[in-house]
């Protein structure tokens, strides 16, 4: 009988554990205060151009605050010494009670904090290393997720005087400009989700039940198309069907006007053809775990053809279908690049948030925050609804005889092939077009006759820093993600309790928050002293880590559930402690699966735009941002070359994924 104790060792010494926990948390707080005090001192010292010690004397009142006397004025202007006294006075105004205590005391604070931290950690780890991991995980999420979201909520509810106010909401819902954006986003997401399901479901069914020539290649192409940077599709479609597009011009010559692709239409086309691949992968996976005997049983009971699909196949796939549809909805809802490029006046929520947040002309951070909160409510609602429906319709199928692809004949066969080829063709078109363009000869910003590597040369010359930064930041993020995800997965699977359940929920929450909104939350929380983190690599890596953790935690947890706890118990009974067991036994067994999951996350990171565009500064510009700004500037050659580099990276990473995981396709 498997007992729910897991490998938790013996009696818990609650008292000592609590003491350790208290010391650990207090230590972290004290040390953080000390470091903040130091950074405050440095900040004021820099402002007042005083040595740190002297400034502290002023701040604590040891040296009385300077007074501006007659001699500080020469004529009616301040003298140099008068100006510096003035600055000191200005800065003294800003000093808070907290500053006064902490600034002179930062060294003892840091030392005491560190000592308490070490002692607390020791007490916690003594029996078992995991309670401390729980504490650290909770602190991590409280500081870097809950606090930013709280700040965002605060900004969304308070007016500039700091009072509770719903004025912004009145503005949002009364002005069409704002309320339309919400409506547009919902409409686009819903339509894109529907079209994606309509394209992908038949395709997955065809490719799982019929032999299609080159099915392997098709699957890889679908994968690549789903992994591309979100707005490359928009960019390619504009090149093809935009006002000056290749296809538009070609058709105009023979007298056909295809109209324009901008606005709602464009967003839906671009997103549908990029995102249907997600639904396709989900449903293909479901066919893999479907038992063919069920389909055969249905046929033998007289329910065949279309009826069989609607009565037997679809109901069994519904949970998977919903999961795929949810992902598409979330992606479409959060997409910033596509509507920005091809939406033109058709403004969606992420675009509006960005514009309000950064606009120098009458934008309002309160408004941006309020819209963000509305967006979070919508996505969370959709997420919960999907969970609720899917949980009620889950079946477990024992797939002894998986569905096999059979050769079809005649018209059916031809139609099936045409359908698959055309759909995959359209989906992969943007990638092909971009790669093709990247090799075209250029003169200035325009494409010229013939082919050359000029675009690549220019890309490496002008934006090599972005290329380097993209790989650097994504790689650091992936390392963080893998480490944190393995530990959280362990807590969630092996040590179920209230605290770890809350870690689970917090780690999954970013999934329902659009990238740009998380970016704004982080920026709101960390753009002021003393918690100034924005504008550097740290906050970019942080945002990538938080955003990609849900996927990696979930896949790691799935792997861990397949590893029998008795393997860890065997190690413990042979004399290893809990930490060593994790690193020597559990981690090596999880690694192959976790690494292949991490590769997928890495691809997502290098192709991500919506968070980066909010958090970057010139030194942390990524490739997607670079493509975006080159596109805006009309520098198509360089944009194509960087896009192509991104696509090549994706393909290489995918090849690595297949090699490591030994799989032939990706199941979501």
């Amino acid at each position, binding site marked *: 009988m498997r007992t729910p104790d897991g*490998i938790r060792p013996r*009696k*818990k010494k609650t008292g000592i554990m609590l003491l350790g926990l208290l010391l650990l948390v207090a230590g972290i707080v004290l040390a953080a205060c000390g470091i903040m005090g130091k950074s405050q001192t440095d900040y004021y010292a820099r402002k007042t151009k005083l040595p740190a010690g002297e400034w502290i004397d002023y701040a604590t009142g040891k040296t009385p605050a300077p007074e501006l006397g007659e001699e500080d004025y020469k004529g009616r202007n301040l003298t140099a010494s008068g100006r510096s006294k003035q600055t000191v006075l200005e800065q003294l105004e800003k000093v808070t009670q907290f500053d006064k205590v902490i600034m002179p005391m930062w060294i003892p604070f840091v030392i005491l904090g560190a000592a308490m931290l070490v002692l607390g950690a020791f007490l916690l780890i003594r029996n078992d290393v995991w309670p401390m991991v729980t504490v650290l995980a909770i602190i991590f999420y409280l500081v870097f997720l809950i606090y930013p979201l709280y700040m965002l909520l605060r900004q969304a509810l308070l007016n500039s005087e700091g009072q509770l106010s719903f004025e912004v909401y009145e503005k949002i819902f009364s002005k069409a400009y704002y309320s339309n954006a919400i409506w547009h986003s919902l409409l686009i997401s819903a339509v894109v989700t529907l079209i994606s399901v309509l394209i992908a479901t038949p395709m997955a069914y065809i490719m799982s039940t019929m032999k299609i020539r080159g099915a392997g290649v098709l699957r890889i192409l679908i994968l690549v198309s789903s992994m591309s940077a979100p707005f490359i599709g928009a960019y390619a479609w504009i090149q093809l069907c935009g006002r000056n597009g290749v296809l538009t011009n070609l058709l105009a010559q023979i007298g056909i006007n295809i109209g324009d692709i901008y606005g709602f239409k464009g967003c839906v086309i671009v997103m549908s053809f990029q995102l249907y691949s997600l639904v396709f992968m989900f449903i293909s996976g479901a066919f893999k775990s479907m038992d063919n005997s069920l389909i055969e049983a249905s046929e033998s009971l007289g329910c065949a053809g279309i009826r069989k699909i609607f009565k037997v196949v679809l109901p069994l796939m519904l949970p998977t279908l919903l999961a795929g549809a949810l992902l598409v909805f979330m992606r479409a809802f959060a997409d910033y690049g596509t509507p920005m490029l091809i939406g033109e006046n058709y403004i969606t929520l992420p675009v509006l948030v960005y514009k309000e947040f950064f606009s120098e002309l009458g934008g309002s951070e309160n408004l941006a925050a309020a819209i963000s909160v509305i967006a979070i409510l919508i996505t969370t609602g959709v997420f919960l609804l999907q969970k609720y429906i899917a949980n009620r319709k889950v079946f477990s199928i024992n797939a002894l005889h998986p569905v096999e692809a059979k050769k079809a004949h005649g018209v059916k066969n031809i139609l099936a092939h045409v359908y698959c080829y055309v759909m995959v063709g359209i989906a992969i078109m943007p990638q092909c077009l971009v790669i093709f363009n990247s090799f075209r000869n250029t003169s200035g910003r325009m494409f010229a006759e013939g082919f050359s590597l000029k675009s690549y040369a220019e890309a490496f010359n002008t934006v090599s820093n972005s290329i380097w930064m993209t790989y650097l930041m994504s790689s650091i993020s992936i390392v963080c993600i893998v480490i944190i995800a393995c530990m959280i997965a362990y807590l969630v699977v092996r040590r179920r309790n209230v605290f770890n359940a809350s870690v689970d929920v917090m780690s999954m929450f970013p999934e329902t928050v659009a990238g740009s909104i998380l970016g704004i939350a982080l920026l709101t929380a960390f753009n002021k002293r003393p918690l100034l983190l924005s504008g550097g690599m740290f906050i970019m890596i942080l945002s990538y880590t938080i955003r990609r953790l849900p996927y990696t935690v979930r896949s790691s947890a799935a792997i861990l559930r397949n590893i029998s706890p*008795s393997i860890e*118990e065997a190690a413990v*009974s*042979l*004399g290893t402690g809990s930490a060593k067991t994790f690193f020597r036994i559990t981690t090596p067994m999880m690694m192959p699966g976790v690494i292949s999951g991490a590769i997928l996350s890495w691809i997502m990171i290098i192709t991500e735009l919506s968070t980066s565009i909010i958090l970057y500064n010139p030194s942390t510009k990524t490739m997607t941002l670079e493509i975006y700004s080159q596109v805006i500037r009309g520098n198509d050659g360089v944009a194509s070359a960087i896009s192509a580099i991104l696509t090549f990276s994706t393909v290489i990473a995918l090849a690595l994924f297949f090699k490591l995981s030994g799989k032939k396709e990706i199941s979501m």
Partner: protein
Amino acid sequence: MSVAIHFDHVVKKYGNNTIIPDLSLDVKEGEFFTLLGPSGCGKTTLLRMVAGFNTIEGGTISFDKQVINDIAPAKRNIGMVFQNYAVFPHMTVRQNVEFGLKNRKLPKDEINTRVNEILETVKITEYANRLPERLSGGQQQRVALARAIVIRPNLLLMDEPLSNLDAKLRIEMRNAIKTIQNEVGITTIYVTHDQEEAMAVSDRIAVMNSGVIQHVSTPKSIYQRPSNLFVANFIGHSNTLNAKADGQKGTLTFENGYSMPYEYFASPDTRGDVKVSVRPEEFIIQAEGNPGVKAVVKSSIFLGLMTTYFVELFNGELVEITEKSSISSIIPNGTAISLGFEAEKINVFTVDGAKSLTKGVLDDAHT
């Protein structure tokens, strides 16, 4: 160095759910001791309490004189063999077996000698450098056994180690386990729900039900003189019949009036209604008209060595009888027969089945 294990009023609870209410038990040094019971009876829970993977909510468990309640699992010096082998899949056979010794920071030479020795003992030397995925279930279980024994534990725990193996391999492995345990002489606690397996390997068996120990004794004694009706039914197969006992006269009288002499009552004061437990092989089939319990053969199965008859008694109850197959023909269905009993072998219990009234019950359980 082997230890004796002493369970003193041990309690196991999950929240308000008591799994083991109050359990006391002694396991002798060097003994092969089996916890046997239906699934959910608490035997694995108890084993994991000894290993340190489950908490102990009350009472104490001690090795020799030392209470181990508060010692970390890693420090208890226990070897454990798991149902699913739990062989580390990313390590070779040798690395698996070395693992515990390396944790104990022994010198390299000694590790090598001990590993080679144990690989020899469990007969897997030739696979030393293979990864577990290239071993059969039986071989993996040998690795798990070697890994558990090589650290020279005070105590070896085995949690249904054979239940994942196929029938033939199971018999081969249980003989191997018994032989190896004899050789090494470690105190062993073995958990199983398979009574045949338990009888084959154990020095003594504790039969458990609902967290309570029903009977502790040698396999022979448990089979032949079970302490209560649950044990009689759980170990082997038993048919239960109603009867009236008279300890003074030394008779058992069945419902149809058939009365037989029975001189094995534990006390001459035994009187009144009792349950009689009769194993299939303890019936004597006689022709109709002989004194005995009247019955009719409903069907039969020929199993080679034995033939099993399904028989309906006069009162409609069904019983199972086995007889050594004879060369003459099988009794045809529908034949009326009269059943006698091998008086020395059958057991008599109180009406509620809680206590044996037969003499010769040996039970080491603390009451």
